[in-house]
């Protein structure tokens, strides 16, 4: 069919065609080798890392939070271990048999058995541990430990809960811990260049963060650093072996300036009335007492509380969650008078001999409006000292009347009004130091002379927190030397500043102190009932915050039928004189009398601090 010539042509064509395909394959082969070369040699390190990341799984290990101490080294917040029974599901072949066997040693209720049964298979598949029973009793621990050789696939593990040893005394000052949002967690982990991942918890309620108070402000110190366990895993994420363990760095201890004993005393004396107590060690500016009442148990919030109980707290009309010490706004009332007196002296509006007649009221010349004092008929002839002791409103109305509002505001601001005077308090309120600008912007009214007059007795728009009032007291006690407040000792060096007062001499300060001593020690003093409660000398200024303006005592008797309308009782005090160590402010809402209601609390707290 095919002749010889054709056969030669055919053979040649075949060879050519086969060689074409072989060459084509040869090209593919070279291309393939190039690809393999680039994967294995050029990009080797990338793929080496990718392979390593594939088989590596990091598990975070939660650090234990630092312990919080009072200023004398008493432990306030600690970590209390509870003991959980943990099993290794991947090593247990027959769960029912295992439960049967371990039930003879440790009783399991149906919830616990259900939980284990539900989660067993999944945990077994990925070689993960499973909690069989939480919070074992001592008896259970002992029963298990002596028989542990029978249960090689179960062990007891320690889990902590955060516990405040005095849960009601420090619920606002130290605050509480709680769960953490994803963003917070991510930012915490980012600091350590970690990713959010599976975590071995040291706390039974998982990730914790300081929510309020010192727990919040010093969260970073208290928190510590996460450790990690590094496992080799297979493609399904099953743990094969632990390859490395970087231990967590537990949180640092925190030595606060808070004084346990004074908190106990203050809490006792407040007796769940609405109010706040703040005391300051004058020399250091450290806060030793920081109490807002009524309070709540910070442990309940940190470690779990039924939603019913929580709602009850939320709806409590006394607002136990409200931090009155740092966030409650109160008119300083008569406690402002020492600052106003100093203003008069500084501006040479008065001197210690200057006196006026107090008829029991002050008439504003501009509009003949009457501003009343607290005592019908007045106090007669009063100078600055007497005006402080008897708390003459007329004296300070007329002094304020003569003042320049801008200078007066500036003067008051030097005492911390309207300012943040604490370096590490949680969410402190700034109170309100009203200015003409503020009034026109917020109330749409111009500033009246009457507003300035009201400022003279600490009423009207002016408001301050108990923290600010205690600071104010400490500045007066320290003769104008002021230091910002702190809750934790030994932190950054605090600068002390002097008030920018040019005309105030040491003798003026001494006379001011002696007037304030007179508030208690003088027979006419507004807080004279406190005299017998102490063994040393205390300087003070009491105040009564009028919530409803009334013309007469009879009118007040009517409005006081409603407890919420009653005046707030307020006092600032410092001692022992003449070298005061502690300054204190006390507010009792609707307590009516600064001297006789808030006063005893202030004295008791000073006693506890001074006589310690």
């Amino acid at each position, binding site marked *: *069919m*095919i002749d010889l010539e*054709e*056969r030669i*042509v*055919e*053979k040649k*064509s*075949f*060879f050519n*065609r*086969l*060689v074409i*395909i*072989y060459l084509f*394959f040869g090209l*593919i*082969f070279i*291309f*393939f*080798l190039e*690809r*393999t*070369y680039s*994967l*294995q*040699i050029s*990009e*080797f390190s*990338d*793929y*080496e890392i*990718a*392979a*390593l990341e*594939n*088989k590596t799984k990091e598990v975070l290990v939660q650090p234990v939070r630092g312990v919080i101490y009072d200023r004398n080294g008493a432990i306030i917040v600690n970590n209390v271990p509870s003991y959980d029974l943990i099993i290794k599901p991947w090593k247990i072949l027959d769960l029912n048999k295992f439960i049967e066997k371990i039930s003879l040693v440790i009783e399991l209720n149906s919830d616990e058995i259900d939980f284990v049964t539900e989660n067993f298979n999944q945990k077994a598949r990925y070689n993960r541990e499973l909690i069989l029973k939480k919070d074992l009793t001592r008896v259970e621990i002992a029963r298990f430990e002596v028989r542990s050789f029978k249960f090689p696939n179960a062990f007891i593990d320690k889990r902590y809960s955060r516990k405040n040893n005095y849960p009601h005394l420090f619920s606002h000052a130290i605050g509480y811990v709680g769960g953490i949002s994803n963003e917070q967690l991510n930012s915490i982990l980012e600091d350590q260049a970690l990713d959010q991942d599976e975590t071995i918890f040291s706390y039974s309620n998982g990730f914790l963060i300081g929510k309020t108070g010192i727990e919040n402000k010093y969260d970073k110190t208290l928190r510590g650093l996460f450790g990690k366990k590094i496992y*080799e*895993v*297979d*493609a*399904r994420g099953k743990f*094969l072996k632990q390859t490395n363990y970087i231990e967590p760095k537990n949180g640092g201890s925190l030595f606060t300036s808070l004084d346990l004993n004074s908190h106990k005393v203050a809490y006792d004396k407040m007796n769940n009335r609405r109010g706040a107590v703040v005391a300051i060690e004058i020399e250091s500016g450290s806060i030793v007492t920081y109490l807002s009442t009524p309070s709540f148990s910070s442990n309940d919030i940190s470690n779990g509380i039924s939603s019913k109980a929580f709602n009850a707290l939320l709806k409590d009309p006394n607002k136990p969650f409200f931090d009155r010490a740092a966030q409650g706004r109160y008119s300083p009332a008569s406690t402002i008078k020492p600052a106003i007196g100093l203003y008069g002296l500084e501006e040479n509006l008065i001197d210690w001999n200057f006196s006026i007649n107090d008829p029991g009221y002050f008439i504003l010349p501009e509009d003949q409006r009457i501003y009343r004092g607290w005592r019908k008929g007045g106090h007669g002839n009063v100078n600055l000292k007497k005006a402080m002791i008897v708390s003459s409103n007329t004296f300070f109305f007329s002094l304020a009347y003569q003042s320049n509002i801008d200078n007066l505001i500036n003067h008051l601001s030097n005492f911390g009004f309207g300012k943040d005077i604490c370096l590490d308090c949680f969410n402190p309120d700034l109170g309100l130091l009203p200015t003409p600008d503020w009034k026109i912007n917020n109330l749409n009214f111009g500033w009246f002379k009457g507003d300035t007059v009201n400022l003279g007795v600490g009423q009207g728009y002016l408001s301050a927190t108990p923290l600010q009032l205690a600071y104010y007291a400490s500045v007066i006690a320290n003769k104008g030397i002021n230091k910002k407040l702190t809750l934790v000792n030994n932190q950054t060096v605090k600068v002390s500043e002097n008030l920018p007062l040019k005309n105030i001499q040491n003798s003026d300060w001494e006379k001011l102190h002696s007037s304030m001593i007179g508030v208690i020690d003088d027979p006419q003093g507004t807080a004279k009932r406190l005299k017998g409660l102490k063994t040393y000398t205390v300087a003070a200024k009491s105040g009564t915050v009028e919530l409803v303006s009334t013309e007469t005592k009879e009118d007040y008797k009517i409005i006081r039928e409603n407890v919420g309308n009653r005046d707030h009782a307020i006092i600032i005090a410092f001692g022992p004189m003449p070298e005061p160590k502690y300054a204190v402010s006390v507010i009792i809402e609707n307590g009516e009398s600064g001297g006789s209601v808030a006063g005893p609390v202030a004295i008791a707290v000073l006693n506890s601090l001074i006589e310690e």
Partner: protein
Amino acid sequence: MKKKLDFKNFSIYFDHYLFISITLLSVMGLFFLYSASQEDLNTVIKQSIFVGFGLILMLAVSQPDPDFYKTFSGIFLVLSILLIFATMIFGKEINGAKRWLDLGFFTLQTSEIVKISLPIFLASYLYNKPLPISLKHTFITLILIGSIFFLVYRQPDLGTGLVVFMAGVYILFLAGLSWRFIFTSFGLVLLSLPFLWNNFLQPFQRQRILTFMDPSNDPYGSSWNITQSKIAIGSGGMSGKGYQDGSQAHLNFLPEAETDFIFAVIAEEFGFVGVCILLSIFFFILLRCLYLAFNARDRFCRLTIGGLSLVFASTLFINLGMVVGIIPVVGMPMPFISKGGSSLLSFYIAFGIIISMATHKKLMQK
């Protein structure tokens, strides 16, 4: 070069180059498989039975004279097509695909047989046709190739289908398909690609191709295989992680490590050096086939050797290309290395036939 072993009056047709290199590959394959199967001795024992049987089969298949294959090629083809029909009816369904006939002791992937019987049949059909192949014969051939491809494709088994298709086309091309026909049809195929894409490919196949174009598209979806395979190969580096120390394979990151992706295991554990050594054996086999094709006794033998060796080469390159990610994932084993009986045995048979074609000489050429 001895092509015959003489035992007194009894002679065995034998090519020791191919025999030694294929045996070497098979033994290396068993060695790799032990690691790839995560030291599963059962798998290796089962595979070594196939290897042993396959080597004997190869020897046996190389004994008959090429004329035997030429004469019976039609019957072989009909039988293998019947097997595919049988698979359609009695086949074992795995993952939605009906490709296997359960023979009790062995599950046979029937399409593996047709990829040998088809090229032999075409060689026997075309060996006496004048050059260039006439349009009539070209169409008859193409219709045959197309129908068999369609049968396999419907199983569905696109990978093997393509190899069967290629096997047929290789023979047609080698036999002297006219260049004009080649260029015309090539142009037509290019034009009809969009139509094929829309009507012929299953959604998962389209997805595979799309993933292949942009593997970063879904690292844990369909490109998982490619990504993990690349990591395995790349992390092997120059000299590899060491035998049985490949983490990608041993921690199950690499899918199909015993079958389609066994090359990635080898590359991970033996590195670029190991890859080069392994590939040079394949390369040697292909060159030997080229040599044998050139020296074959007649056109039928030439076509058969050329066609079967190209089937072998195509399977290898599709597998390699898929594993390193230069072509989309299609199920394709690595010849003589991957686990799996049917494919393994089919290549022993193919090489047995190649050896038969190469070693039987005729005193007078036709």
